[in-house]
């Protein structure tokens, strides 16, 4: 299925990646090529096949629901581009 410019714009928006209007045609073209390659999957008879959800059949382990970590605020904030008063700082979210 070919991706048109509107779809490319929508996908970029959903992915939260800014793409300039002038770059959308080239992006749509590249995405169409990749998705065209995937069309081959339609040749496969998948009737009655369950989608694979785990690589190795095993039950995920459980652990006791207890606190195992904490009190490392400084470490958590250390790599933040903007941290103030013990919080991550971001542009205003609520008007």
């Amino acid at each position: 299925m070919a991706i048109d410019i509107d779809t490319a714009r929508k996908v970029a928006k959903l992915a939260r990646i800014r793409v300039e209007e002038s770059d959308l045609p080239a992006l749509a073209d590249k995405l169409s090529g990749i998705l065209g390659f995937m069309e081959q999957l339609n040749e496969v008879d998948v009737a009655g096949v369950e989608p694979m959800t785990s690589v190795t059949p095993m039950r995920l382990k459980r652990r006791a629901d207890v606190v195992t970590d904490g009190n490392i605020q400084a470490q958590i904030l250390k790599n933040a581009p903007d941290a103030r008063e013990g919080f991550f700082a971001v542009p205003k979210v609520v008007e």
Partner: protein
Amino acid sequence: MTANTWTIAAARDALRKGEISAVDLTMSCLTAIDAGDGLNAFVFKTPEIALDQARAADARLSSGDAPAMCGIPLGIKDLFCTKGVPSQAASNILKGFRPEYESTVTAQLFGAGAVMLGKLNMDEFAMGSSNETSCYGNVVNPWRREGSNVPLTPGGSSGGSAAAVAADLCLAATGTDTGGSIRQPAAFTGIVGIKPTYGRVSRWGVVAFASSLDQAGPMTKTVRDAAIMLQAMSGHDPKDSTSADLPVPDFEAALTGDIRGKVIGIPREYRMDGMPAAIEALWAKGIEMMKDAGAVVRDISLPHTKYALPAYYVIAPAEASSNLARYDGVRYGHRARLAAGDGITEMYEKTRAEGFGPEVQRRIMVGTYVLSAGFYDAYYNRARKVRALIKRDFETVFADGVDAILTPATPSAAFGLGEMADADPVQMYLNDVFTVTVNLAGLPGVAVPVGLDAQGLPLGLQLIGRPWEEGALLNCAHVVESRADFVAKADKWW
């Protein structure tokens, strides 16, 4: 021969006998690294850490408490988080990130006494097959075509690891493999690389690309070294819920060289149209080696092979689009400079546009598309069903008595840097055609160097094993290695 050219096994024995110190061994690698800047393999050097670790290793060696990896100098792929040391997955979006924690794999290696020489270049977020998507620039393959100085790709995504090991800048390196990222660069540079069974090695602290496919493994000069280093990397980790709680056998002890009576499958679907004659001949040579060693060679069919690449290029971007959502400019890494009035959405969009390179952006958007409402069933669910069929293909041949499967590792030898610049992204994806099935099925696979093509470039074969049987797989690889007797090295130009 200076010590940086040694194998892990030779260095281990020399260290234990006191014939060399870990400090001297480390120094010889640090010297080689400084002389190897033209390869662009090491992107962050850690000589102080290396010498501290080497001194500690010497103390351990002299006290007699020395595991196999004690004092062995390694390069670490930039995808592994290393405490206090830049770890940015070759991406501008993680510029300046210094983790406050250590990945399980590196913690285990350092706990066993291994020495970290520095961080190794790679494709951005491990997305690429030529090491041309890195924010640090291309890695250059130490190998060149005979009589030519055209720079070649070392492969990807573990291209820095492959080049560093092939050029003897380190004794071995860590790699990661989501669709072939250990095995393809190993084949392009004439070294050994194994992707273990999914769950054998902890993924904790390794920057995630596609979580159901990612697996770390060693990249080494010999099969024996791969066995020794894999042993140290493996084991159950409560911090990775997909890590298998299984005992880790002694992989080195499995290298008996005896594969008499083992059944080696040759999948007819891997005989691609237009396959270069050199690859065809190499494969035939491998089959002869197996017969010569007393194995039973059997033609097999893996009927869904053709659909592995398209399935992979739905599943991997889908998982990547989710994993990479965390890079939002809030908690770590790059944040874009904002204009007056920009809100949080503009911050996300500008940060991610500036921080991610074109291939990563493309894969995130492909993943976003195949997971979006209306397309989820048509693409993502269909790909997961095809994945189940690919896995079933392997289960069927293993149930029929096949012990291992022999295939080419790559469809060609290393190509020129920039040669694929104008090609469709799909052309680059074809590099993974022989390796990607193994990730989809979660199996172990190893690339072994076998010969040189007409232009003097290394070519490798791949062996695929049964789940959790890395020892038996490495034993088959050991048989190929000893019969191929691949001793060629790249002529030093760097």
